[in-house]
Structures are given as C-alpha cells and as structure tokens.
C-alpha cells in the first residue's frame, strides 16, 4: 500500500511552519505508524532531504513520548492507543494522512512534529507528590487500602503524560491530566495529609502555565490513550472547591521549642 502524507515542517520554535506533501514508499499494513515514518525518513535522507523530526521512544504505548495529530485526531483513529500503537492496517491504500504536532500554547513547537511539554513537569513539581523521605516509610501492609480505592487510583495513575488531552481541547485545558494526578494520590490514604494543598497548588500552576479552562466537552477523554475517565475531573473540581473553602491554616508565630 501507499499513502499521501501532508506533514507539518517547521525548522525551530521561531520559524514559520508549513505543510509539505510526500508520497510514502511502498508500505506493509503490519507496520506501525512510526515505522512508516522511519521508512519515509530513510528515503528522504537517501535523497538528501532532512528527515521529519518526530518524538518517540518506547514504542509500546507507555512512555508518553509520541505525540502526533493524525487527520485531526491526537494519536489517530483508534480509541485507547498511542500513536506508536497505531498500525497502517487502520488506513487504506491511497489515503491522504495529515500529520501535525500537538498544538497548544503551553506546548511550544521545537521542530516539525516535536513539541515541548515541560509545562507538565512543572505542574507536578508544584505538588504532585506525597512527601515521604526515603527511609521513613512504615511497613507497607501497615497502611491497608480498600481494593476499590486502590483500583480506582490505579485507573487514574495509568496516565502517561502524553498531553493528547490538551491537544484535543479547544481551550488547551490540562484538566484531565491534573485530575488524573490529583485523583490517584487523593484516593489513597497515604495522600490525605497533603490532599487539599496538592490540588490547590497544581491547579494554580496549571493556570499560570497558560492552560485554558475546562468546559467539560469530553474531547480529552475521547482521545486519551489510557481512557482516563472524565469522572476524575469532577473529583478534581470537588477537591479544589473544598480546598478553597478550607483556606490556608493559620500560621503560628515563632519557631518550635528547643
């Protein structure tokens, strides 16, 4: 099979980008989408054209690096998979495929199809953790976790931080991402002491990074390769509201004894 590719090319963050059209070499339907791009890049290189830059690493759907919008949909036509788990058998001979990077203000383009998602890290640095000094943990079985909570926390924890939710959202909102992180830790007993502090800090950081507001259209859930549920956004909103009502604990004057 062969396909026509309209690919976004952009030299660097400052340069203007444009679509370029290529005809793919002969393809095998069992190729992954990224292997198709590998083959295209070898052909481009052999004729002296610079290969298309695209992000990828594990190629098994877990590292969250690959990030392509294929024909308008982040991660392509299949539900519940990443770009790297999309196979050419999902397309027909002669199809035109339009390939773009994630497009969102907080994810500036680095080159061609590669964008910079460090804003996600910064949100997590603001509060996406349970403070536990190495060596200070009690025996693991001294903290029982109801299986239902643990399973639900795991559903949220599956988020791979790819950013497809942001790319799909008309407001470039990161709510599903933040909701997944907040819900994972907030559902565990270990996460309770910092529960409200965490949600407040992460939401504030999300806002200052320039992600937009959530209007609950569900476009994020529809493209999430791990099928993270929109329900977690409700959980985030509830925790955030409580955190605002609770306010900050009153600071005490002076230091401790001793």
């Amino acid at each position, binding site marked *: 099979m062969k396909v026509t590719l309209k690919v976004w090319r952009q030299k660097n963050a400052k340069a203007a980008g444009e679509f370029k059209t290529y005809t793919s070499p002969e393809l095998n339907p069992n190729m992954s989408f990224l292997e198709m791009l590998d083959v295209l890049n070898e052909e481009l290189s052999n004729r002296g054209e610079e290969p298309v830059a695209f992000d990828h690493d594990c190629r098994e759907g877990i590292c969250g690096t690959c990030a392509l919008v294929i024909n308008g949909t982040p991660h392509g036509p299949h539900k519940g998979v990443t770009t790297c788990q999309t196979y050419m*058998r999902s397309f027909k001979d002669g199809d035109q495929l339009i390939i773009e990077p994630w497009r969102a203000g907080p994810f500036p383009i680095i080159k061609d199809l590669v964008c910079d998602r460090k804003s996600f890290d910064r949100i997590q640095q603001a509060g996406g953790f349970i403070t536990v000094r190495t060596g200070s943990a009690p025996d693991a079985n001294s903290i029982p976790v109801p299986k239902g909570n643990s*399973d639900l*926390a795991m559903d949220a924890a599956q988020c791979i931080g790819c950013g497809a939710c942001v790319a799909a959202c008309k407001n470039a909102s990161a709510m599903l991402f933040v909701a997944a992180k907040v819900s994972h830790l907030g559902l565990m007993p270990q996460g309770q002491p910092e529960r409200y502090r965490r949600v407040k800090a992460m939401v504030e950081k999300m806002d200052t990074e320039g992600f937009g507001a959530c209007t609950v259209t569900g476009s994020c859930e529809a493209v999430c390769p791990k099928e993270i549920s929109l329900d977690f956004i409700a959980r985030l909103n509830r925790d955030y509201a409580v955190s605002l009502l609770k306010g900050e604990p009153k600071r005490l004057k002076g230091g401790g004894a001793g």
Partner: protein
Amino acid sequence: MATLNSNIPSGPLSQKWENHKFSSKLINPANKRKYKIIVVGAGLAGSSTSATLAELGYEVHNFVFHDSPRRAHSVAAQGGINAAKNYQNDGDSVHRLFYDTIKGGDYRAREANVHRLAEVSVNIIDQCAAQGVPFAREYGGLLDNRSFGGAQVSRTFYARGQTGQQLLLGAYSALNKMIGAGGVISHTHSEMLDLVVVNGHAKGIIVRDLQTGGIHRHSADAIVLATGGYGNVFNLSTYARGSNVTASWRAYKRGATFSNPCYTQIHPTCIPVSGEYQSKLTLMSESLRNDGRIWVPKRKEDAKKAPADIAESDRDYYLERMYSAFGNLAPRDVASRAAKTVCDEGRGIGSTGLGVYLDFAESIRRLGEDKVRERYGNLFSMYHEITNENAYTSPMRIYPAVHYTMGGLWVDYNLMSNLPGLFVLGEANFSDHGANRLGASALMQGLSDGYFVLPNTIATYLSTVKTGGRPGTEIGEFKEAEENVQGFIRRATSGKGSRTPDSFHKQLGKLMWEHCGMARNKAGLEKGISLISDLREEYRTNLRVLGDAENWNQQLEKAARVGDFIELGELMCRDALMREESCGGHFREEYQYTAADSEVQQGIVNVGDVKRRDDQFAFVAAWEFPESADKAPILNKEPLVYEEVKMGTRSYK
C-alpha cells in the same frame, strides 16, 4: 592495568551491610550542602537517587536526554518487583531471595552485593507504598503477590501490567518534590557526551542541549551514571528506541572498566519479528507464564497447521517436560534457549518458523475469561494491537528477544567504578545479576541502588574530597573533552558520507544477533569481530547526517549513539570469545552438557544445558580501554569468592 578492589566488607555475609553502614564515614549536614553531585539518567535508579541525595542535603543536578524524567525506559517494565516480604507465608526470606538470585545468575554475581539487594528489597516496597504507588491489593486492603520465573515462592509485587510506570512515577514524584524544593536542578533534553577526568577522578561531564545544540561543561564533586543498559546494540530489542550506551561508553573510554559485556538477557516471551521495517520488539510480560502454557507441535510436519488443528496429544509442552520442577516458570535464559532448540529442530510455528505458542486455553477453562482478563487484559489488548490476533481464542505466538544486559561498568561494593568519583547504578552497572537476571529483579536493583545504597556509600568517597575544591570548567581537561565532542559533531555534519545512522544500526544489529546472540561459538565470534571492525571503518568514512547541529537534530543524536554501539559490539564479541564456558545468558556451543556427563545421567540437568567452568572462569571480566584505539582492550579479572553459597550445578528440573 586497572586497580580493582571490590571493597567487600569483612564479617558474616548477613551482617556486612549493617556493619559497613556503621563503619562508613558520615558527612555533617552543613558540609553536605557544599558538595555538588551530577546524576545522569532519571529512570528508577537515577530519579530515586537524585531525590534521596537532595533530601540528605547535597546539591544535585540531574540530566536526561528526554523531555521529562518520567519517560526513562524503566517506565516500560510490566510484570513486577521482587521483595522478600514473605507476606504469602510460603517460605520466603531474605536468604531465599539472595540464594535464588545467586543461582539465577548462574553463580557469576558477587555474593555480598546480592545479599544486600535482598535485604534492602523489603524497604523498597515500604517506600513505594508510602509514596502512593497503587500496587495490586487483596480485598482486605493488603498487598497482593504473584510468581515469577526462577522462584518457587510468590514474592512479586505488581501494579497491573505496568509496575515499571507506577514505580517510576513514584520515584519521579519524589524527584519532583525535590526539584520544587530547589534541592535538585533538572536539566532535560540534555545528553551527556563525555566524562571529564581530572587527576584521575571523575569531576565533570560535557552535555549537548538537544534543543539548541549548545555544548555545555558541568563540574561536580562526584558523577553518578544511571543510564541503563545497552541491549539496543542488537537494534531489535524490547528497549526504547532512545536507550543507548553512550554515557557508559564514553566513561569507558576515559578509563572506567566495562564488565562482562557479553552477558545479555534474551527474554523468552516477545512478539516475533514480522518484517524488515521492524524497529522494535514488544515484550509480553513474564507474568503470563503464571497461567500460560508454552508448546510447539511434537512433529515438524504439524508446524504450519493452525493451532486448533493440532490435537492435545500431538503437542509438546517442552518446558514442563524438560524442567518439571519449574515448568513454564523456568528462568529466562533456560526458557529462551529451549525455544531456540525446538525451532532449530523445525518445530517452530508461524510464517517464519521462529515462534512458539503461549496458550491460555487451560487457564480460561479453569479460571474463566473474566479472571484472565483482569490479570492480563492490557497485555492481551497490546498483543491484539500489534498482531491483529485474539489471544483469548487462539494461543499467542512468541519468540525470544533481547531484553536486558547484565554486564555494565564495573563497580565496587560502594557502587564506585575504578575511576574515583564515578558511581554507576541500576542496569548500567554489572554487579547483581551475574550471567542471568531473574524476572522482577531489575526494578528491585534500580531502586535499591538509588534509594538505599548510593546515598549511604557515596559519603565514603566524598569524605575524602575537600569542600570547595571542585575544579572550574575552564581548565584544560574540560576544554579537551568539549573539543572531543565538537570534533565528532563537525565530522558527522560535514556532509561527506552517504549512509544514515539507522542503516548502520540495522546492519550492526543483524551481525550481533548472528554472531553474538543466543548461541555463540569461537569461529562465529571471530568472524563477528572482523565484520564489526569493517563496519566501524565504513562508519568512520561513510556516515552522513543531514541538518545542522544548532537545532534539534535526531539524526545527529542517533549517529553518536550508533558509533558507540559499533565499538561496544566488538568488545562484546571479544568478551564472549574470551569466556570459554557457558553460563546463564552466555551460551557457548562448545560448552554444554552431553549424554556422557554424569549430571545428565543423574537427572540434574538436560543435554544441551549450559556448562560452567568454575576452575577457570569464576571471575568478573573488567575490560580496560587501551592507551590508543588501535590496540586491543586489556582484560582485568576480579575473582568471584563465594563464602556462603557453594557454586553448584544450576538445576531447574
């Protein structure tokens, strides 16, 4: 010759670590602030150690080539992490985990390191649970376990089929906490391209900023490499495409010795290769062997038949037949070699004949499809995505693939290499898995090294380093190292050659698989060395990288990594050639059990099992880079002294 002192503490094995911690020097909190430590890599070992060192008060700089520390390839580990908790009451103990690991490594690991690993394993689970890692639990809210290869107890903790991601997110959250608190400075999209050695001590690194192409010098009081394994030397492997040996290799070329490079783990259950375009092999977790049964047809005439058309009586469940005590849970090296043997006999299945069945029919009958789906659902859907086949109705097709490397930079008990100030953690070092790693032990080692070992042992070195004595980056050693990096970039982008880095990588991979793969022999290895040396020459003269070095350039990144893989490939062949015995994942055809051996007659091992030669090869090989590149590398040997365990014949029958 390099000086190799393993610095194993004296005293009884079970007390070495406690005694060592007590007798090690401490650094007072006010002084810790004055030491700067560079950590390269942010997988389980790199993240956990960066966070812990910063908690202790050191100034930590963490470097990763990824856009985020969370993308390191630890994220892809599926099955689980071992710990000697004995929550199952099935007879597990620190000593049993230690013994299983030593035996699993075919008596080629250091006893003291492995015992420490087993001791620390219990603390890891506590630490991770406290961080909120959503481990699988029973209805009572306590932790669940499952079984893994090479063990007869259930000691593996897991989080569905993505234990690696969940443990990494735990370590990453600890790292984030310390980045947020200012204790760790995170340098992302920053690839280490050289090590700077000053007066024999590792004191800095040269880094390329992948976004801007800028080359930067960084100095520190100690350097920690946690940069993973080198299995991508085979091109096709279960590793992430970006995993590479460059940081370790550049350290080797600056004087760190490289140990046991030929010890490669070939994982028995991966999805078979489907075509020339293939870029990656996907693992199907070892946990599947808890409930899946591996078989091929008894007769080779049946190999092309559909599995449903092969009667039960015509199937050979060869692992159950050959290794009845462990059956389908035989260790990885044993299971892989058995798969190769039955395929070599012409009984392999699938279009290429390089495949065996992993069958769940019996488990589905016994447990119901829902239970199987709950345990392995994500793996079955991953299998379906890749092959377009339904493993609930027809058995999976699997074949061994490169998965892990037990070899790596040599380290002493303190995890310090022979270059003072250079520490190596996780898969990047050689120390804990001998010649074969057991399933669910890689995560354990990465976190043990990172959370609990290095943060204690690094003080032994730092206490000998004067505070404030860090060299400035303007000195000659830094200048020379930067020029070394710049020179390569200039040559690669000069536009003279005609072949892409990928084409070299593919060729190298095939060569390595053929000559230094699952079965090795003298003639093949000698041929491999000569072919790799030709490839290296062609790479030097005919490499072409498009684009410029001042922008994002993935082909340039790849070029540097492939060049290092080619050089490493040659060293792996040399190591495999030198090691005239078989052990664990290293199988030399000349050294295997035959029907004439008494061990076979007594029923301890099978014909074709690996045959060690302890009288001559009970040592760690530590290769030293020669004075000049045209000379052969120098072999150093660290004898393996076993105080506790007797080096026995490894039997899983």
